[in-house]
């Protein structure tokens, strides 16, 4: 079913957006700029949610109690990625990781790093689910999720 005699058209859509963070995300990202990871605590179920939320997704009540959470946690799962697609915001190879920061009740999504990522067999020797990890900060912080460069093995 390969097309031989039929033509195609190349086209593209590019649209600029400006998305509002609102108060909660703004404060969370300001926190990152100051090397603080903020979560918010639900007043009903007492879970500490990170990143900070304006409301608890389960209880639907405002999550108003701000907590500067631990920058140390446990690696829950990781994914070594070494392929690229259009618009991918992180340059491969990278290790997408779910991290349970100490004292929190959900898994925080970020990167593992601080070692050579180019050889998967070497990576596999270093990265183990269940290992303790710690946030490493960028020197050039802009109030952005990548102000944390990655989490390194402890």
């Amino acid at each position, binding site marked *: *079913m*390969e*097309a031989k005699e*039929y033509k*195609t058209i190349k*086209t*593209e*859509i590019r649209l600029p957006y400006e*998305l509002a*963070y609102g108060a909660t*995300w703004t404060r969370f*990202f300001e926190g990152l700029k100051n090397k603080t990871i903020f979560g918010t605590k639900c007043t009903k179920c007492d879970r500490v*949610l990170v*990143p900070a939320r304006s409301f608890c*997704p*389960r209880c639907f009540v405002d999550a108003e109690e701000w907590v500067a959470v631990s920058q140390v946690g446990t690696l*829950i*799962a*990781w*994914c*070594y*990625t*070494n*392929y690229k*697609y*259009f*618009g*991918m*915001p*992180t340059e*491969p190879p*990278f290790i*997408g*990781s*779910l991290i349970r920061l100490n004292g929190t009740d*959900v*898994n*925080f*999504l*970020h*990167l593992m790093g601080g070692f050579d990522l180019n050889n*998967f067999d070497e990576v*596999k020797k270093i990265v183990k*689910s*269940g290992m303790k990890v710690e946030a490493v900060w960028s020197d050039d912080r802009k109030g*952005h*999720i*990548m102000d944390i460069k990655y989490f390194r093995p402890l």
Partner: protein
Amino acid sequence: MGRPVAIIGVGQTKHGRRMDVSYPDLVREAVMAVFNETGLTPDDIDGVVSGTMPSMMEGIALTHFYFADAMQAAGKPIMKTETCGSTGVSIAHTAYYWVASGMADLVLAVGHEKMNEGNSQATMTTVAEPFYQRYFISGAPGVFSMQSQMWMDRYAIPEEKIRDAAAFISVTHHDSAFDNPYAHIKMRVTMDEVKNARIITYPVRLLDVCPNSDGACAVIFASKDMVKKLGRKPAWIRGVGYRGEEYFFGDSDKVVWESAIQAAKQAYDQAGIKNPRKELDVAEVYNPFTFQEMLFYECFGFCEPGESPDLVLKGTFSRKGELPCDPSGGTLCTNPIGATGLIRVAEAALQVTGKAGDHQVPKAKLALSHAMGGVDQFNGIMILGSKL
């Protein structure tokens, strides 16, 4: 559950890389197939439901308007249902609700996708918002890799055993695709080839992953009166279930995966199913990734948590096993995403009406169909039976 509803006909395109047709002509190919199969005409249809992945997949917004002509929807109610990977099952649910409510007697449901015209992983990544999750989720394979690791850790299943079971699934589904005239990937693979294939996102390798397919599927849903009037062999809808969970990937447990468990439970309760492995004759589980298919077996109660790799290797879910899963070759061999869930429903309907041809499971009377959508966020089920 409202009025009884049955599927009375299905049509599929040949799925694959279909640069030989424009997108509307591809949709029409499936619609014509179901009209040819049933002998019905567009005049008989009371309403049309359609659905796809996000519009970025092909770069054209509101495709149900674009395909109004190809689906012969002018002059009728039309509705689009869009739930990411589970779109196809959601289309089926929408059509079902329409007939069950008494608002329609014959509804045409159409799912469609042309994944080769755009960039599928880039499209799927737009499901994640661009200030937190999008930086870390490497398309669909990344999400499923993390999920399969969590599953492996939770039940301390030896990695080698899971790897073997996943390879077994890949080999058997690729073999089954040869018996499905509409399947995309037709390729014999060996256990060693699967286990040594290129890593996509560890532990997922190339032959553990579905292809990018172009294709469409059309299904006609009918009321009981219409089934009688038309005298066609019906596949009765015996149960439907759909459940979601929180948006952020890290907010809910993806091993004891509540959306999958509860969606199945809702459908089982309606169908009166207590022991799915014994009572179901066949299942079309949404399986874009070999590892994830095994987790679904556990969430759907086909076996105990952590038990699926052993049973896979014993052949429990193979074509001649106790509960054959994905005899069509499944999503692993054919994945035009907006159509994929509806293809699962269509395959289940073919099985319980004895029309599945070379991949027919003998005497199948009760079948489960399923699809999953979002960043592991939503699961939908439809159970079909030869009897009401």
